[in-house]
C-alpha cells in the first residue's frame, strides 16, 4: 500500500511539473505575459483618440444637419470633458492604462492571457 502511495505521489509530482513547464513555455511565447503588451508599436495615434464624437441623432436634436457629426457641436458634448483643456495625450497610446489590469472574464482570452496589439 505504501509503495502504491509513493508511486502515486511521484506521478502526481511529475504531472504537476510538466504542467508548470508547459505554462512557462506558453509565457515565453508571449501570450500569457502581461508585460508583453508594452511592446506594442502604436505610434502616430497621438491626439487622434481624444477627440469627441457626436451622434447624428444628437446633431439633429441640436438643429444641425443629419448623418454627420458636427465639429461645432463639440463644446455642447464636452461640458464634462476631461481632456479638452490642453491636457490632450492623457490616453495611453500603447493600450491599457496598466499592464497589470486583468482582462475581462469573458472567456475570450482563455482565462489568463492578454492580446498583443500593434498599430502600423
Amino acid at each position, binding site marked *: *500500500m505504501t509503495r*502504491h*502511495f509513493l*508511486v*502515486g*505521489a511521484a*506521478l*502526481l509530482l*511529475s504531472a*504537476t511539473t*510538466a*504542467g*508548470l513547464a*508547459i505554462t512557462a513555455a506558453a509565457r515565453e511565447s508571449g*501570450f*500569457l505575459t502581461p508585460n508583453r503588451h508594452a511592446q506594442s508599436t*502604436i505610434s*502616430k*495615434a*497621438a491626439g*487622434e*483618440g*481624444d*477627440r*469627441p*464624437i*457626436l*451622434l*447624428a441623432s444628437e446633431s439633429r436634436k441640436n438643429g444641425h444637419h443629419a448623418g*454627420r*457629426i*458636427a*465639429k461645432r457641436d*463639440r463644446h455642447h*458634448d464636452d461640458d464634462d470633458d476631461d481632456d479638452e483643456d490642453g491636457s490632450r495625450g492623457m*490616453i*495611453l*497610446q*500603447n*493600450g*491599457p*492604462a*496598466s499592464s497589470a*489590469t*486583468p*482582462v*475581462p472574464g*469573458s*472567456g*475570450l*482570452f*482563455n482565462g489568463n*492571457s*492578454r*492580446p*498583443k*496589439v*500593434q*498599430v*502600423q
Partner: protein
Amino acid sequence: MKALMTALAAATALVTPTLAMARPVTFETTLKNYGGNGAYVALYVTDAAGKYRGTLWMAGGKAKYHRHLADWQRMSGGAAAEIDGITGASIGSGKTLKITADIADAMIDAGYQVRVDTAVEDGMDNPSEVVVPLSTGSAGKLTPGKGYVKSFSVSF
C-alpha cells in the same frame, strides 16, 4: 492499485486546466485613408445566436464616446468592465490595427462571429460594419467594411 488510480486522477485534474486547448488568432483591421480624425474601433465576438460574448479590443479610450459604437454599446451594455485592460488609442486614418489573442479552440468553427464597429469625429458611426465568422474557413480572407474599414482578416 486503488491508490495509484486516485493519484492518477488527481494528477489529471491538476494538469488538464494547464493544457486547455487554445491557439493564437490574429485579427487585422486596416482603415481606409478617409483623412479625418482617429477612429474609435471596437472588435467583439457574438455567438451563433447573435448574443454578445465579449470584447477583443477597444481602440479609443474615452468612455463617453463609446456609445457611438452603437452595436457594441447595445450588446455589451457598455460597461467599463467589458473593456478593462483591453483598451487602447484610437486608430489613425490608413493605419492597421493588428491584434493577436489566445482564443479557446472551442470558439473556433463553432458559429461565433467577430464584429467591428467604428466611429469618427465629424464622420459617421458604423455599427457592425464588419461581421466575419470565427472559422478556419475564413482564415486569411480580406473582408471590406461598410464604413471606415478597408479590410479585415482573421488568421490562425
